[in-house]
Protein backbone atom coordinates (compact mmCIF):
# COMPACT_ATOMS: atom_id res chain seq x y z
CA UNK A 1 0.00 0.00 0.00
CA UNK A 2 1.23 3.47 -0.94
CA UNK A 3 0.43 6.18 1.55
CA UNK A 4 1.23 9.87 1.18
CA UNK A 5 0.65 11.97 4.28
CA UNK A 6 0.62 15.77 4.37
CA UNK A 7 3.28 16.00 1.69
CA UNK A 8 4.78 19.39 0.88
CA UNK A 9 7.53 19.77 -1.73
CA UNK A 10 9.24 23.02 -2.57
CA UNK A 11 11.87 24.00 -5.13
CA UNK A 12 13.63 26.81 -3.31
CA UNK A 13 10.93 29.34 -2.50
CA UNK A 14 8.38 27.84 -4.90
CA UNK A 15 6.01 25.40 -3.29
CA UNK A 16 5.21 22.74 -5.89
CA UNK A 17 2.81 20.59 -3.93
CA UNK A 18 1.32 21.43 -0.57
CA UNK A 19 -0.14 19.27 2.15
CA UNK A 20 -1.23 16.40 -0.07
CA UNK A 21 -2.50 13.16 1.45
CA UNK A 22 -3.36 10.17 -0.73
CA UNK A 23 -3.70 6.44 -0.32
CA UNK A 24 -3.57 3.69 -2.95
CA UNK A 25 -4.20 0.03 -2.13
CA UNK A 26 -2.86 -2.96 -4.11
CA UNK A 27 -4.83 -3.73 -7.24
CA UNK A 28 -6.00 -0.15 -7.47
CA UNK A 29 -5.09 2.62 -9.91
CA UNK A 30 -5.00 6.23 -8.78
CA UNK A 31 -4.92 8.83 -11.55
CA UNK A 32 -3.47 12.27 -10.88
CA UNK A 33 -5.08 14.94 -13.02
CA UNK A 34 -4.77 18.69 -13.16
CA UNK A 35 -3.55 21.49 -15.41
CA UNK A 36 0.08 21.75 -16.56
CA UNK A 37 2.37 22.73 -13.73
CA UNK A 38 -0.14 21.67 -11.08
CA UNK A 39 2.39 19.42 -9.37
CA UNK A 40 1.60 15.97 -10.78
CA UNK A 41 5.13 15.29 -11.95
CA UNK A 42 6.55 16.70 -8.72
CA UNK A 43 4.39 14.27 -6.79
CA UNK A 44 5.71 11.35 -8.85
CA UNK A 45 9.28 12.59 -8.41
CA UNK A 46 8.84 12.95 -4.67
CA UNK A 47 7.35 9.48 -4.26
CA UNK A 48 10.19 7.97 -6.29
CA UNK A 49 12.71 9.74 -4.09
CA UNK A 50 14.16 12.18 -6.64
CA UNK A 51 13.22 15.21 -4.57
CA UNK A 52 13.05 15.23 -0.82
CA UNK A 53 9.88 16.65 0.64
CA UNK A 54 9.91 19.71 2.84
CA UNK A 55 7.47 18.02 5.17
CA UNK A 56 5.15 15.05 5.24
CA UNK A 57 5.74 11.39 4.73
CA UNK A 58 5.56 8.77 2.02
CA UNK A 59 5.29 5.14 3.04
CA UNK A 60 5.11 1.87 1.15
CA UNK A 61 3.72 -0.90 3.35
CA UNK A 62 4.36 1.28 6.39
CA UNK A 63 8.02 1.80 5.53
CA UNK A 64 9.01 5.43 5.05
CA UNK A 65 10.78 5.71 1.68
CA UNK A 66 12.96 8.59 2.89
CA UNK A 67 14.69 6.20 5.28
CA UNK A 68 15.70 3.54 2.77
CA UNK A 69 18.64 3.61 0.36
CA UNK A 70 18.02 4.09 -3.37
CA UNK A 71 18.71 0.47 -4.26
CA UNK A 72 16.16 -0.88 -1.84
CA UNK A 73 13.65 1.80 -2.79
CA UNK A 74 13.93 0.69 -6.42
CA UNK A 75 12.87 -2.79 -5.34
CA UNK A 76 9.65 -1.36 -3.88
CA UNK A 77 8.77 1.25 -6.43
CA UNK A 78 9.29 1.64 -10.17
CA UNK A 79 8.58 4.55 -12.50
CA UNK A 80 7.57 4.75 -16.15
CA UNK A 81 8.84 8.16 -17.24
CA UNK A 82 7.15 10.56 -19.63
CA UNK A 83 7.11 9.47 -23.23
CA UNK A 84 9.96 11.03 -25.14
CA UNK A 85 12.36 10.13 -27.87
CA UNK A 86 15.06 7.77 -26.69
CA UNK A 87 18.46 7.78 -28.28
CA UNK A 88 21.11 5.18 -27.65
CA UNK A 89 21.51 2.00 -29.59
CA UNK A 90 20.70 -0.44 -26.80
CA UNK A 91 18.47 -3.31 -27.79
CA UNK A 92 15.05 -3.63 -26.22
CA UNK A 93 16.25 -6.57 -24.18
CA UNK A 94 19.30 -4.67 -22.87
CA UNK A 95 17.15 -1.69 -21.92
CA UNK A 96 14.62 -3.84 -20.09
CA UNK A 97 17.42 -5.75 -18.34
CA UNK A 98 18.60 -2.44 -16.88
CA UNK A 99 15.33 -2.37 -14.97
CA UNK A 100 16.91 -5.18 -12.93
CA UNK A 101 19.66 -2.88 -11.64
CA UNK A 102 18.26 -2.83 -8.12
CA UNK A 103 18.38 -6.63 -8.03
CA UNK A 104 21.94 -6.88 -9.38
CA UNK A 105 25.34 -6.13 -7.96
CA UNK A 106 27.69 -3.34 -9.03
CA UNK A 107 28.91 -5.39 -11.98
CA UNK A 108 25.41 -5.84 -13.36
CA UNK A 109 25.81 -9.58 -13.72
CA UNK A 110 22.54 -11.23 -14.70
CA UNK A 111 21.22 -14.28 -12.89
CA UNK A 112 18.36 -16.56 -13.86
CA UNK A 113 15.84 -14.48 -11.87
CA UNK A 114 16.80 -11.43 -13.90
CA UNK A 115 16.44 -13.22 -17.20
CA UNK A 116 13.06 -14.63 -16.13
CA UNK A 117 11.80 -11.21 -15.06
CA UNK A 118 12.91 -9.65 -18.35
CA UNK A 119 11.31 -12.43 -20.36
CA UNK A 120 8.04 -12.02 -18.48
CA UNK A 121 8.08 -8.23 -18.86
CA UNK A 122 8.71 -8.55 -22.61
CA UNK A 123 5.83 -11.01 -22.89
CA UNK A 124 3.47 -8.85 -20.89
CA UNK A 125 4.18 -5.81 -23.03
CA UNK A 126 4.12 -7.81 -26.24
CA UNK A 127 7.70 -6.88 -27.02
CA UNK A 128 9.13 -10.38 -27.37
CA UNK A 129 9.58 -10.05 -31.11
CA UNK A 130 11.34 -6.74 -30.61
CA UNK A 131 13.87 -8.04 -28.07
CA UNK A 132 16.91 -7.65 -30.31
CA UNK A 133 15.91 -4.44 -32.04
CA UNK A 134 17.55 -1.14 -31.23
CA UNK A 135 15.31 1.09 -29.09
CA UNK A 136 16.21 4.20 -31.07
CA UNK A 137 14.59 2.67 -34.16
CA UNK A 138 11.23 2.02 -32.47
CA UNK A 139 8.13 4.18 -32.79
CA UNK A 140 6.96 6.35 -29.90
CA UNK A 141 4.37 3.81 -28.80
CA UNK A 142 6.87 0.98 -28.90
CA UNK A 143 9.44 3.01 -26.94
CA UNK A 144 6.84 3.72 -24.29
CA UNK A 145 6.17 0.00 -24.00
CA UNK A 146 9.90 -0.54 -23.53
CA UNK A 147 9.85 1.90 -20.61
CA UNK A 148 6.84 0.08 -19.16
CA UNK A 149 8.58 -3.28 -19.63
CA UNK A 150 11.67 -1.90 -17.89
CA UNK A 151 9.55 -0.84 -14.92
CA UNK A 152 7.77 -4.20 -14.86
CA UNK A 153 11.10 -6.04 -14.91
CA UNK A 154 11.96 -4.09 -11.78
CA UNK A 155 9.30 -6.31 -10.12
CA UNK A 156 8.06 -3.79 -7.60
CA UNK A 157 4.73 -3.81 -5.73
CA UNK A 158 4.25 -0.11 -6.54
CA UNK A 159 4.23 1.17 -10.13
CA UNK A 160 4.15 4.85 -11.03
CA UNK A 161 3.63 6.33 -14.46
CA UNK A 162 4.24 9.95 -15.39
CA UNK A 163 1.93 10.88 -18.25
CA UNK A 164 2.68 7.64 -20.06
CA UNK A 165 0.33 8.34 -22.96
CA UNK A 166 1.74 11.67 -24.13
CA UNK A 167 2.55 11.63 -27.83
CA UNK A 168 0.88 8.26 -28.30
CA UNK A 169 -1.91 7.72 -30.79
CA UNK A 170 -5.33 6.45 -29.81
CA UNK A 171 -4.53 2.78 -30.27
CA UNK A 172 -1.30 2.92 -28.30
CA UNK A 173 -2.84 5.03 -25.55
CA UNK A 174 -5.64 2.58 -24.98
CA UNK A 175 -3.55 -0.54 -25.29
CA UNK A 176 -0.92 0.78 -22.87
CA UNK A 177 -3.53 1.77 -20.32
CA UNK A 178 -5.50 -1.45 -20.65
CA UNK A 179 -2.29 -3.36 -20.08
CA UNK A 180 -1.60 -1.39 -16.91
CA UNK A 181 -5.19 -2.00 -15.83
CA UNK A 182 -4.86 -5.73 -16.43
CA UNK A 183 -1.51 -5.98 -14.60
CA UNK A 184 -2.82 -4.01 -11.64
CA UNK A 185 -5.59 -6.53 -11.21
CA UNK A 186 -3.63 -9.68 -11.97
CA UNK A 187 -0.49 -8.88 -9.99
CA UNK A 188 -2.19 -6.70 -7.38
CA UNK A 189 0.09 -3.78 -8.21
CA UNK A 190 -0.39 -0.47 -6.50
CA UNK A 191 -0.49 2.03 -9.36
CA UNK A 192 -0.30 5.81 -9.37
CA UNK A 193 -0.24 7.65 -12.68
CA UNK A 194 -0.29 11.22 -13.83
CA UNK A 195 -2.63 11.57 -16.80
CA UNK A 196 -3.32 14.40 -19.17
CA UNK A 197 -6.25 13.09 -21.13
CA UNK A 198 -9.30 13.38 -18.92
CA UNK A 199 -11.35 11.06 -21.10
CA UNK A 200 -8.92 8.21 -20.50
CA UNK A 201 -9.21 8.63 -16.75
CA UNK A 202 -12.52 6.88 -16.27
CA UNK A 203 -11.38 3.96 -18.42
CA UNK A 204 -8.31 3.26 -16.38
CA UNK A 205 -8.59 4.68 -12.87
CA UNK A 206 -10.35 3.49 -9.74
CA UNK A 207 -9.61 6.74 -7.96
CA UNK A 208 -8.88 10.20 -9.31
CA UNK A 209 -7.05 12.99 -7.54
CA UNK A 210 -7.49 16.47 -8.96
CA UNK A 211 -4.54 18.72 -8.23
CA UNK A 212 -4.51 22.45 -8.94
CA UNK A 213 -1.64 24.78 -8.06
CA UNK A 214 -0.06 22.15 -5.87
CA UNK A 215 -3.20 21.65 -3.83
CA UNK A 216 -5.37 18.56 -3.77
CA UNK A 217 -8.82 19.77 -4.83
CA UNK A 218 -10.69 16.51 -4.49
CA UNK A 219 -10.19 12.79 -4.65
CA UNK A 220 -12.73 10.08 -5.37
CA UNK A 221 -14.12 7.81 -8.07
CA UNK A 222 -14.03 9.16 -11.65
CA UNK A 223 -17.73 10.11 -11.73
CA UNK A 224 -17.34 11.93 -8.42
CA UNK A 225 -14.32 13.96 -9.43
CA UNK A 226 -15.04 14.51 -13.11
CA UNK A 227 -17.94 16.87 -12.61
CA UNK A 228 -18.31 19.89 -14.85
CA UNK A 229 -18.00 22.09 -11.79
CA UNK A 230 -14.67 20.58 -10.68
CA UNK A 231 -13.15 20.48 -14.15
CA UNK A 232 -14.30 23.95 -15.19
CA UNK A 233 -12.83 25.41 -12.06
CA UNK A 234 -9.54 23.52 -12.27
CA UNK A 235 -8.85 24.17 -15.94
CA UNK A 236 -10.43 27.64 -16.06
CA UNK A 237 -12.57 26.73 -19.02
CA UNK A 238 -16.25 25.85 -19.22
CA UNK A 239 -16.86 22.19 -20.06
CA UNK A 240 -19.79 19.98 -20.95
CA UNK A 241 -19.92 16.51 -19.52
CA UNK A 242 -21.91 13.76 -21.15
CA UNK A 243 -22.31 10.13 -20.25
CA UNK A 244 -20.66 7.48 -22.37
CA UNK A 245 -23.57 5.82 -24.16
CA UNK A 246 -22.47 2.32 -23.21
CA UNK A 247 -20.43 2.50 -20.04
CA UNK A 248 -21.99 5.59 -18.51
CA UNK A 249 -18.63 7.07 -17.61
CA UNK A 250 -18.23 10.82 -17.92
CA UNK A 251 -16.84 12.29 -21.16
CA UNK A 252 -15.56 15.83 -21.13
CA UNK A 253 -15.88 18.40 -23.90
CA UNK A 254 -14.36 21.83 -23.48
CA UNK A 255 -17.03 24.27 -24.60
CA UNK A 256 -14.55 26.44 -26.43
CA UNK A 257 -14.03 23.92 -29.20
CA UNK A 258 -17.57 22.62 -29.54
CA UNK A 259 -19.13 24.37 -32.52
CA UNK A 260 -22.44 26.02 -31.77
CA UNK A 261 -25.10 25.33 -34.37
CA UNK A 262 -28.32 27.18 -34.55
Amino acid at each position, binding site marked *: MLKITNLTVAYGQNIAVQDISLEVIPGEILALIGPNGAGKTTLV*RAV*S*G*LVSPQSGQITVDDQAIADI*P*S*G*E*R*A*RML*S*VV*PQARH*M*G*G*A*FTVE*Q*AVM*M*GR*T*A*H*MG*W*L*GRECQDDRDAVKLALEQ*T*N*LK*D*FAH*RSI*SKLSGGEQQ*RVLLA*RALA*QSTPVLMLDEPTNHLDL*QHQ*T*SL*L*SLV*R*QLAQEKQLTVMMALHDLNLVS*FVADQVALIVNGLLQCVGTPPEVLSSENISQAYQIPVDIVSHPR*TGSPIIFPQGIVKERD
Partner: protein
Amino acid sequence: MDAISKIVFTPAPIPACSPASSPMLRNRPFIFNILLLLAALIFSIALGAVYIPPGKILKILADQLPWVALEPDWPNSSVAIIMAVRLPHTVLIAMTGAALASSGAAYQGLFRNPLADPYLIGVASGAGLGAVVAMVLNWPTELGGYYLIPIAAFIGAILTVLIVYNLARVNGLVPLTTLILAGVAVGAFTSAITSYLMLTSDDQIYRAIAFLLGGSPMAGWNPVLAALPYMLVGMGLLSISGHSLNVLQFGEDEARQMGLNVDRAKIYIIITASLTTAVAVAFSGVIGFIGLIVPHIVRIIWGPDYKRLVPISIFLGASSLLVADMLARILLAPTTLPVGIVTALAGAPFFLWILRRAKREVFW
Protein backbone atom coordinates in the same frame (compact mmCIF):
# COMPACT_ATOMS: atom_id res chain seq x y z
CA MET B 1 -13.23 -1.82 -20.16
CA ASP B 2 -13.87 -5.04 -22.05
CA ALA B 3 -13.69 -3.33 -25.38
CA ILE B 4 -10.29 -1.82 -24.84
CA SER B 5 -8.68 -4.82 -23.26
CA LYS B 6 -9.34 -6.67 -26.51
CA ILE B 7 -7.03 -4.36 -28.39
CA VAL B 8 -3.74 -6.15 -28.69
CA PHE B 9 -0.39 -5.04 -30.00
CA THR B 10 0.47 -6.31 -33.41
CA PRO B 11 4.22 -6.13 -33.76
CA ALA B 12 5.46 -4.78 -37.04
CA PRO B 13 7.38 -7.30 -39.15
CA ILE B 14 11.03 -7.47 -38.26
CA PRO B 15 13.40 -6.77 -41.13
CA ALA B 16 15.60 -9.73 -41.90
CA CYS B 17 18.96 -9.33 -40.22
CA SER B 18 21.80 -9.16 -42.67
CA PRO B 19 24.44 -11.72 -41.75
CA ALA B 20 27.52 -10.16 -40.20
CA SER B 21 30.14 -9.65 -42.86
CA SER B 22 32.84 -11.21 -40.72
CA PRO B 23 31.55 -13.40 -37.87
CA MET B 24 34.97 -13.58 -36.23
CA LEU B 25 35.23 -9.79 -36.14
CA ARG B 26 31.70 -9.26 -34.89
CA ASN B 27 31.03 -12.20 -32.60
CA ARG B 28 34.41 -12.74 -31.02
CA PRO B 29 35.51 -9.22 -30.14
CA PHE B 30 38.03 -10.27 -27.53
CA ILE B 31 39.75 -12.97 -29.55
CA PHE B 32 39.89 -10.65 -32.56
CA ASN B 33 41.29 -7.77 -30.51
CA ILE B 34 43.85 -9.88 -28.66
CA LEU B 35 45.18 -11.22 -31.97
CA LEU B 36 45.26 -7.70 -33.39
CA LEU B 37 47.12 -6.43 -30.35
CA LEU B 38 49.68 -9.25 -30.46
CA ALA B 39 50.37 -8.50 -34.12
CA ALA B 40 50.71 -4.77 -33.38
CA LEU B 41 53.08 -5.46 -30.48
CA ILE B 42 55.34 -7.70 -32.58
CA PHE B 43 55.47 -5.30 -35.52
CA SER B 44 56.10 -2.36 -33.23
CA ILE B 45 59.17 -4.19 -31.89
CA ALA B 46 60.23 -5.27 -35.37
CA LEU B 47 60.18 -1.84 -36.99
CA GLY B 48 63.00 0.65 -36.71
CA ALA B 49 66.35 1.60 -38.14
CA VAL B 50 67.26 -2.07 -37.98
CA TYR B 51 64.43 -4.39 -38.94
CA ILE B 52 64.23 -7.45 -36.72
CA PRO B 53 62.04 -10.26 -38.13
CA PRO B 54 59.08 -11.29 -35.91
CA GLY B 55 60.40 -14.88 -35.62
CA LYS B 56 63.66 -13.60 -34.14
CA ILE B 57 61.81 -11.30 -31.77
CA LEU B 58 59.78 -14.17 -30.37
CA LYS B 59 62.93 -16.24 -29.87
CA ILE B 60 64.81 -13.39 -28.22
CA LEU B 61 61.87 -12.65 -25.93
CA ALA B 62 61.47 -16.33 -25.06
CA ASP B 63 65.18 -16.53 -24.28
CA GLN B 64 64.76 -13.78 -21.68
CA LEU B 65 62.51 -16.05 -19.63
CA PRO B 66 64.50 -17.58 -16.77
CA TRP B 67 63.53 -21.19 -17.53
CA VAL B 68 64.17 -20.96 -21.27
CA ALA B 69 67.64 -21.24 -22.79
CA LEU B 70 67.80 -21.09 -26.59
CA GLU B 71 70.81 -21.46 -28.85
CA PRO B 72 71.36 -17.82 -29.95
CA ASP B 73 71.28 -17.34 -33.73
CA TRP B 74 70.95 -13.57 -33.48
CA PRO B 75 73.41 -10.72 -32.97
CA ASN B 76 73.79 -9.39 -29.45
CA SER B 77 72.89 -5.94 -30.70
CA SER B 78 69.37 -7.16 -31.51
CA VAL B 79 68.88 -8.17 -27.89
CA ALA B 80 70.07 -4.76 -26.73
CA ILE B 81 67.81 -2.92 -29.20
CA ILE B 82 64.77 -4.92 -28.19
CA MET B 83 65.29 -5.00 -24.44
CA ALA B 84 66.57 -1.46 -23.88
CA VAL B 85 64.69 0.51 -26.53
CA ARG B 86 61.89 -1.07 -28.49
CA LEU B 87 60.21 -3.26 -25.89
CA PRO B 88 59.82 -0.54 -23.23
CA HIS B 89 58.70 1.93 -25.91
CA THR B 90 56.17 -0.51 -27.32
CA VAL B 91 54.78 -1.40 -23.90
CA LEU B 92 54.42 2.26 -22.92
CA ILE B 93 52.68 3.11 -26.20
CA ALA B 94 50.30 0.17 -25.80
CA MET B 95 49.46 1.12 -22.22
CA THR B 96 48.96 4.75 -23.22
CA GLY B 97 46.59 3.88 -26.06
CA ALA B 98 44.65 1.51 -23.81
CA ALA B 99 44.39 4.12 -21.07
CA LEU B 100 43.28 6.97 -23.34
CA ALA B 101 40.71 4.85 -25.19
CA SER B 102 39.15 3.34 -22.07
CA SER B 103 38.98 6.63 -20.20
CA GLY B 104 37.57 8.27 -23.34
CA ALA B 105 34.83 5.63 -23.42
CA ALA B 106 34.09 6.24 -19.75
CA TYR B 107 33.94 10.04 -20.16
CA GLN B 108 31.63 9.67 -23.16
CA GLY B 109 29.32 7.49 -21.11
CA LEU B 110 29.49 9.67 -18.03
CA PHE B 111 28.76 12.91 -19.88
CA ARG B 112 26.43 11.12 -22.30
CA ASN B 113 28.24 13.01 -24.96
CA PRO B 114 29.90 11.48 -28.02
CA LEU B 115 32.63 14.09 -28.16
CA ALA B 116 33.98 13.66 -24.67
CA ASP B 117 37.66 12.80 -24.99
CA PRO B 118 40.35 13.27 -22.35
CA TYR B 119 42.07 15.73 -24.69
CA LEU B 120 39.04 17.73 -25.85
CA ILE B 121 37.53 18.17 -22.40
CA GLY B 122 40.79 19.55 -21.02
CA VAL B 123 41.57 16.68 -18.64
CA ALA B 124 44.75 15.81 -20.47
CA SER B 125 45.95 19.43 -20.23
CA GLY B 126 45.15 19.42 -16.52
CA ALA B 127 47.06 16.18 -16.07
CA GLY B 128 49.91 17.69 -18.10
CA LEU B 129 50.05 20.68 -15.77
CA GLY B 130 50.14 18.40 -12.73
CA ALA B 131 52.90 16.30 -14.26
CA VAL B 132 54.96 19.35 -15.23
CA VAL B 133 54.67 20.81 -11.74
CA ALA B 134 56.06 17.54 -10.39
CA MET B 135 58.84 17.42 -13.00
CA VAL B 136 59.89 21.03 -12.53
CA LEU B 137 60.02 20.61 -8.77
CA ASN B 138 61.90 17.36 -8.96
CA TRP B 139 63.09 15.94 -12.28
CA PRO B 140 62.98 12.16 -11.88
CA THR B 141 66.35 10.47 -11.98
CA GLU B 142 65.42 7.14 -10.50
CA LEU B 143 62.33 4.94 -10.36
CA GLY B 144 61.07 6.40 -7.09
CA GLY B 145 60.79 9.84 -8.67
CA TYR B 146 58.77 8.47 -11.56
CA TYR B 147 56.11 7.09 -9.25
CA LEU B 148 55.29 10.60 -8.01
CA ILE B 149 54.54 12.09 -11.44
CA PRO B 150 51.24 10.23 -12.06
CA ILE B 151 49.96 11.31 -8.65
CA ALA B 152 50.59 14.97 -9.47
CA ALA B 153 49.04 14.44 -12.92
CA PHE B 154 46.03 12.78 -11.30
CA ILE B 155 45.47 15.77 -9.02
CA GLY B 156 45.65 18.09 -12.04
CA ALA B 157 43.26 15.88 -14.02
CA ILE B 158 40.65 15.56 -11.30
CA LEU B 159 40.62 19.31 -10.60
CA THR B 160 40.21 20.03 -14.30
CA VAL B 161 37.40 17.56 -14.82
CA LEU B 162 35.49 18.96 -11.86
CA ILE B 163 35.90 22.54 -13.09
CA VAL B 164 34.93 21.67 -16.68
CA TYR B 165 31.96 19.58 -15.55
CA ASN B 166 30.57 22.33 -13.37
CA LEU B 167 31.14 25.00 -16.00
CA ALA B 168 29.52 22.92 -18.71
CA ARG B 169 26.50 21.69 -16.82
CA VAL B 170 23.14 23.18 -17.80
CA ASN B 171 20.06 21.91 -15.93
CA GLY B 172 21.70 18.65 -14.99
CA LEU B 173 22.77 17.92 -18.55
CA VAL B 174 26.18 18.39 -20.11
CA PRO B 175 25.49 19.63 -23.65
CA LEU B 176 28.02 19.10 -26.38
CA THR B 177 28.73 22.77 -26.99
CA THR B 178 29.27 23.86 -23.39
CA LEU B 179 31.36 20.78 -22.64
CA ILE B 180 33.76 21.38 -25.52
CA LEU B 181 33.87 25.13 -24.92
CA ALA B 182 34.56 24.70 -21.22
CA GLY B 183 37.13 22.01 -22.03
CA VAL B 184 38.93 24.20 -24.55
CA ALA B 185 38.91 27.22 -22.23
CA VAL B 186 40.13 25.37 -19.16
CA GLY B 187 42.60 23.45 -21.33
CA ALA B 188 44.03 26.70 -22.71
CA PHE B 189 44.30 28.11 -19.20
CA THR B 190 46.15 25.10 -17.79
CA SER B 191 48.37 24.95 -20.88
CA ALA B 192 49.31 28.58 -20.32
CA ILE B 193 50.37 27.86 -16.75
CA THR B 194 52.27 24.82 -17.98
CA SER B 195 54.14 26.94 -20.54
CA TYR B 196 54.97 29.52 -17.90
CA LEU B 197 56.34 26.86 -15.58
CA MET B 198 58.42 25.41 -18.40
CA LEU B 199 59.86 28.78 -19.39
CA THR B 200 60.97 29.48 -15.84
CA SER B 201 62.63 26.06 -15.48
CA ASP B 202 66.15 25.31 -16.66
CA ASP B 203 67.04 24.55 -20.23
CA GLN B 204 67.44 20.81 -20.04
CA ILE B 205 64.16 20.25 -18.25
CA TYR B 206 62.43 22.65 -20.64
CA ARG B 207 63.51 20.61 -23.63
CA ALA B 208 62.55 17.31 -22.02
CA ILE B 209 59.10 18.55 -21.08
CA ALA B 210 58.47 20.22 -24.43
CA PHE B 211 59.33 16.97 -26.14
CA LEU B 212 56.95 15.05 -23.87
CA LEU B 213 54.04 17.46 -24.16
CA GLY B 214 54.49 17.52 -27.92
CA GLY B 215 53.37 13.91 -27.88
CA SER B 216 56.64 11.99 -27.65
CA PRO B 217 56.55 9.34 -24.93
CA MET B 218 59.43 9.00 -22.47
CA ALA B 219 62.05 6.34 -23.15
CA GLY B 220 63.36 3.49 -21.05
CA TRP B 221 61.91 1.12 -18.48
CA ASN B 222 61.40 3.55 -15.60
CA PRO B 223 58.23 5.18 -16.99
CA VAL B 224 56.86 1.73 -17.90
CA LEU B 225 57.43 0.35 -14.43
CA ALA B 226 56.08 3.48 -12.76
CA ALA B 227 52.97 3.56 -14.96
CA LEU B 228 52.16 -0.13 -14.67
CA PRO B 229 50.57 -0.31 -11.19
CA TYR B 230 48.47 2.81 -11.74
CA MET B 231 47.38 1.57 -15.16
CA LEU B 232 46.38 -1.83 -13.84
CA VAL B 233 44.32 -0.30 -11.04
CA GLY B 234 42.76 2.41 -13.21
CA MET B 235 41.84 0.25 -16.18
CA GLY B 236 40.81 -2.68 -13.99
CA LEU B 237 38.35 -0.48 -12.13
CA LEU B 238 37.14 1.14 -15.36
CA SER B 239 36.47 -2.25 -16.92
CA ILE B 240 33.92 -3.11 -14.27
CA SER B 241 32.02 0.19 -14.44
CA GLY B 242 30.15 -0.83 -17.59
CA HIS B 243 26.82 -1.57 -15.97
CA SER B 244 26.69 1.82 -14.23
CA LEU B 245 27.61 3.56 -17.48
CA ASN B 246 24.83 1.68 -19.27
CA VAL B 247 22.20 2.67 -16.72
CA LEU B 248 23.42 6.29 -16.73
CA GLN B 249 22.59 6.50 -20.45
CA PHE B 250 18.92 6.91 -19.47
CA GLY B 251 19.75 10.05 -17.48
CA GLU B 252 20.46 10.52 -13.82
CA ASP B 253 16.82 10.65 -12.69
CA GLU B 254 15.84 7.41 -14.35
CA ALA B 255 19.07 5.77 -13.24
CA ARG B 256 18.15 6.64 -9.65
CA GLN B 257 14.63 5.30 -10.11
CA MET B 258 16.14 2.07 -11.43
CA GLY B 259 18.11 1.80 -8.21
CA LEU B 260 21.59 2.93 -9.26
CA ASN B 261 23.54 4.85 -6.64
CA VAL B 262 24.16 7.65 -9.11
CA ASP B 263 26.42 9.85 -7.02
CA ARG B 264 28.68 6.97 -6.09
CA ALA B 265 28.81 5.77 -9.70
CA LYS B 266 29.73 9.23 -11.00
CA ILE B 267 32.49 9.74 -8.46
CA TYR B 268 33.85 6.26 -9.17
CA ILE B 269 33.95 6.85 -12.91
CA ILE B 270 35.44 10.35 -12.66
CA ILE B 271 38.20 9.14 -10.34
CA THR B 272 39.12 6.02 -12.30
CA ALA B 273 38.94 7.69 -15.73
CA SER B 274 40.98 10.67 -14.53
CA LEU B 275 43.60 8.42 -12.92
CA THR B 276 43.93 6.40 -16.12
CA THR B 277 44.23 9.52 -18.27
CA ALA B 278 46.69 11.11 -15.87
CA VAL B 279 49.13 8.20 -15.97
CA ALA B 280 49.06 8.16 -19.76
CA VAL B 281 49.73 11.90 -19.94
CA ALA B 282 52.46 11.78 -17.29
CA PHE B 283 54.71 9.53 -19.35
CA SER B 284 53.47 9.87 -22.92
CA GLY B 285 52.46 13.50 -23.09
CA VAL B 286 49.32 14.89 -24.61
CA ILE B 287 48.11 12.54 -27.33
CA GLY B 288 44.74 13.57 -28.67
CA PHE B 289 41.85 11.84 -30.38
CA ILE B 290 42.64 8.21 -29.47
CA GLY B 291 40.13 8.50 -26.63
CA LEU B 292 37.57 9.81 -29.11
CA ILE B 293 38.09 7.57 -32.11
CA VAL B 294 38.56 4.16 -30.53
CA PRO B 295 35.35 4.02 -28.44
CA HIS B 296 33.42 5.15 -31.52
CA ILE B 297 34.80 2.40 -33.67
CA VAL B 298 34.04 -0.11 -30.92
CA ARG B 299 30.49 1.24 -30.64
CA ILE B 300 29.94 0.97 -34.38
CA ILE B 301 31.24 -2.59 -34.65
CA TRP B 302 30.34 -4.14 -31.30
CA GLY B 303 27.43 -2.06 -30.04
CA PRO B 304 26.84 0.40 -27.21
CA ASP B 305 26.98 -1.97 -24.21
CA TYR B 306 29.60 -0.40 -21.93
CA LYS B 307 30.21 -3.74 -20.20
CA ARG B 308 31.98 -4.73 -23.42
CA LEU B 309 32.76 -1.29 -24.80
CA VAL B 310 35.24 -0.35 -22.07
CA PRO B 311 37.30 -3.58 -22.08
CA ILE B 312 37.31 -3.76 -25.90
CA SER B 313 38.44 -0.13 -26.02
CA ILE B 314 41.42 -1.09 -23.85
CA PHE B 315 42.60 -3.61 -26.45
CA LEU B 316 41.73 -1.61 -29.54
CA GLY B 317 43.17 1.54 -27.98
CA ALA B 318 46.50 -0.21 -27.48
CA SER B 319 46.61 -1.55 -31.05
CA SER B 320 45.50 1.76 -32.55
CA LEU B 321 48.14 3.83 -30.81
CA LEU B 322 50.77 1.22 -31.73
CA VAL B 323 49.77 1.59 -35.39
CA ALA B 324 49.87 5.40 -35.12
CA ASP B 325 53.28 5.15 -33.47
CA MET B 326 54.61 2.89 -36.22
CA LEU B 327 53.43 5.43 -38.78
CA ALA B 328 55.14 8.16 -36.75
CA ARG B 329 58.39 6.21 -36.99
CA ILE B 330 58.05 5.23 -40.67
CA LEU B 331 56.59 8.29 -42.39
CA LEU B 332 59.67 10.53 -42.22
CA ALA B 333 62.27 7.88 -41.32
CA PRO B 334 64.91 8.24 -40.02
CA THR B 335 63.20 11.18 -38.29
CA THR B 336 60.55 10.09 -35.78
CA LEU B 337 57.42 12.21 -35.62
CA PRO B 338 55.72 12.77 -32.27
CA VAL B 339 52.94 10.19 -32.20
CA GLY B 340 50.56 12.95 -31.07
CA ILE B 341 50.91 14.52 -34.54
CA VAL B 342 49.81 11.33 -36.25
CA THR B 343 46.77 10.86 -33.99
CA ALA B 344 45.80 14.49 -34.55
CA LEU B 345 46.15 14.17 -38.34
CA ALA B 346 43.88 11.15 -38.34
CA GLY B 347 41.67 12.28 -35.49
CA ALA B 348 40.69 15.82 -36.40
CA PRO B 349 38.80 14.80 -39.57
CA PHE B 350 37.22 11.97 -37.62
CA PHE B 351 36.13 14.45 -34.97
CA LEU B 352 34.38 16.57 -37.60
CA TRP B 353 32.69 13.49 -38.99
CA ILE B 354 31.32 12.56 -35.56
CA LEU B 355 30.20 16.13 -35.04
CA ARG B 356 28.07 15.88 -38.16
CA ARG B 357 26.76 12.46 -37.17
CA ALA B 358 25.96 13.64 -33.65
CA LYS B 359 23.73 16.32 -35.12
CA ARG B 360 21.69 13.65 -36.80
CA GLU B 361 21.55 11.59 -33.63
CA VAL B 362 22.47 8.32 -35.21
CA PHE B 363 24.07 6.85 -32.16
CA TRP B 364 22.95 9.06 -29.33
